[in-house]
């Protein structure tokens, strides 16, 4: 095997693709798409909050609660006591003067009646729970006062307790538990590996089919060994994929650095709920755009598992590509390649919920699944080193074996024209001399 030949092929495959318009466009457009997808909910949420300020008329039949409720008006809910007949309140709501009205019957005071909210559109879940908690709080306080509770008792009732979660680390002490954030990171990493292996694998297959159907391949294999061509192609496209992902990572990092200052241009800190005079970074955090620091070892393992998974699947995609002359003919043959690639996606939710269950541990060690599942588990839980190393060693062993088998299939496939072979025939190619 000649490394210099593999290098020549790798370089040509890499440059040919990287400078193509399609590649440049995809590399630039995908981040835009991602920003839109990520920013849209935040933007809509922000807009919704802006328009969600509601004014609620209060028909206080108890005669005691209105003032406290008005005092409890918050950012999104304003209470206005009214002294009108039911009919005129209703018409006021219909005219749009109020978003709705709240009827507090006198029986509330002895804890029997129920408060009722009337509105045109019914209100959403968040409004309901908001109203519910405010009315309850005001009413409870009032009844305690009436019952003669002391100021101490009242302050106890008023106080809220925050719940913080901490994670025990292996050694001593504790760390902040950002389970949610790390679940998100793990999920994103798993999906990135899945999509990257899927798309770049397809690229490899397409490249093999093009070479075969344009019949340039016979000239190439009269100059280099088929295995050298296979490796040069797989590595060249892998390098292209890494270059694309590094570009995206750089764009993301650059984006994080500018998003604070950009927000500062358009919003006042108080709009985002940050304290006045907050730094751009603090504003970014307040706007909910933040990335928890990803541990370096996770990044390293992510890259290693991506490369391993790519080499494993890309060689299989290449073997399938070598057997056909057109993309359409590949569909049936792709089944055994796609199945192990898609299966781990079905395990994602289970593993996120129980990352340390036996099923989770076992599936994350299986070579065809580990690139996706082990990375996910590493992000959301503390995985013993031996499990990671076992998974990786098995992955390396499997891809070396698969590349060898794929190389033997490829060697026969690229020179076989005519009827699309069955999986059985393809398996037999591996045994040819």
């Amino acid at each position: 095997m000649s490394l210099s030949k593999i290098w020549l092929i790798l370089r040509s495959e890499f440059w040919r693709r990287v400078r193509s318009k399609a590649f440049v466009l995809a590399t630039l457009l995908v981040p835009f798409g991602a920003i839109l997808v990520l920013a849209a909910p935040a933007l809509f949420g922000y807009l919704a909050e802006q328009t969600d300020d509601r004014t609620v008329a209060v028909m206080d039949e108890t005669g005691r609660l209105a003032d406290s409720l008005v005092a409890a008006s918050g950012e999104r809910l304003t209470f206005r006591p009214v002294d009108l007949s039911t009919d005129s309140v209703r018409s006021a709501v219909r005219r749009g003067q109020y978003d709705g009205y709240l009827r507090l019957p006198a029986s509330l005071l002895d804890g029997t009646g129920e408060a009722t909210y009337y509105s045109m559109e019914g209100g959403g879940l968040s409004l309901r729970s908001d109203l519910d908690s405010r009315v309850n709080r005001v009413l409870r306080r009032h009844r305690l006062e009436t019952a003669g509770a002391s100021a101490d008792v009242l302050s106890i009732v008023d106080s809220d307790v925050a719940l913080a979660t901490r994670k025990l680390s292996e050694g001593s002490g504790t760390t902040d538990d950002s389970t949610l954030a790390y679940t998100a990171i793990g999920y994103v990493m798993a999906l990135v590996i899945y999509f990257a292996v899927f798309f770049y694998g397809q690229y490899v297959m397409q490249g093999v089919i093009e070479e075969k159907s344009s019949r340039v391949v016979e000239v190439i294999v009269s100059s280099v060994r088929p295995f050298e061509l296979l490796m040069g192609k797989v590595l060249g496209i892998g390098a292209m994929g890494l270059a694309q992902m590094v570009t995206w990572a750089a764009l993301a990092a650059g984006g994080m650095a500018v998003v604070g200052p950009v927000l500062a241009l358009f919003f006042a800190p108080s709009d985002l709920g940050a304290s006045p005079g907050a730094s751009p970074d603090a504003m970014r955090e307040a706007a909910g755009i933040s990335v928890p620091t990803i541990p370096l070892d996770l990044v390293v393992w992510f890259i290693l598992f991506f490369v391993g998974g790519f080499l494993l699947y890309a060689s299989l995609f290449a073997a399938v590509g070598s057997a056909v002359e057109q993309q359409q003919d590949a569909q049936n043959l792709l089944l055994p390649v796609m199945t192990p690639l898609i299966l781990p996606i079905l395990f994602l939710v289970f593993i996120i919920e129980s990352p340390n269950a036996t099923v989770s541990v076992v599936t994350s060690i299986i070579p065809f699944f580990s690139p996706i599942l082990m990375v996910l588990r590493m992000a959301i839980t503390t995985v013993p080193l031996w499990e990671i190393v076992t998974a990786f060693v098995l992955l390396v062993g499997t891809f070396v074996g698969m590349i060898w088998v794929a190389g033997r299939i490829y060697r026969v496939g690229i020179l076989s024209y005519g009827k699309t072979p069955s999986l059985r025939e393809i398996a037999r190619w591996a045994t040819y001399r």
Partner: protein
Amino acid sequence: MAHLEVSNVTKRYGDTVAVDDVSFDAEPGRILGLLGPNGAGKTSTIRMITYIAVPDAGAVHYDGRTVGPWSQQRMGYLPEKSGLYKRLGVKEQLVYLGTLKGLSQARAADRADYWLDRFDATDWADMTTEELSKGMQQKIQFIATLLHDPSLLIFDEPFSGLDPINADLLRDIILELRRDDRTILFASHRMEQVEQLCDDICLMAEGNVVLQGPLHDVKAQFGKNTLVLEFDGDDAFVDELVAAGQVRVNTRSAHRAELTLADGTSARQVLDRALDCTDELYRYERVAPPLNEIFVEVVGEAEARRMREAAAAGAA
């Protein structure tokens, strides 16, 4: 310059024997024509010579050594129906293919310039292959075959898709390569091209070599059993001769017939009949059989017809 030796090679694909114990030699400074219909084992044999495939038995030697990656660097191969990378520029493509044959980037670029100039193709250097006509693509592939100055050249149907002018240019260059003492293998269905170009022939059928040797010797071996007649008037005498089992018709038109004498028929008998029956006889010549007829005799009519059909399909 070195010679090529194919010794007792056999190649099987699954249960099919593609090449069965085939041996032949190719000498420097000569052109060896490899003939045979589709499925005769030509391509499989060529793939073993080019080290794209390895024989199940037997060996291929070039310059005294078993072929391998080393011999690929000294050999140029133009496969039948081969193609190029569609979206790659002509020159970039040539340089890439040249470097795969072991040339340096700079040397490959120089050689590409020289050959593009020779083929009046300098203007195409920056065009992509998909912008070129079929004939232009065939020229570029021909250049790719020669770029690294190989001492062993293998052309499989090199003239397909070329107009007569470019076919002549190609033939001149192939003959020039022969004068440089290179070893040349020329595979074709087309007997007339083989007769024009080759010094030696090797005829294959169903995985076996059925006939080989210098073209002249092969023809002499079959004697002068062929008659060419050109005449005016009634040609019914030909039908009578055929009916009597005295001759076989190779080709025939209104005023011309090429006949093969059956064993025991003297050429004189045919001449007598022709003189009796035609109004005028312009030509009566006794010649060596054309390659096509030799092939018919060796492998049978059915096989020969298949080959003619394949040749016609290739030419279309």
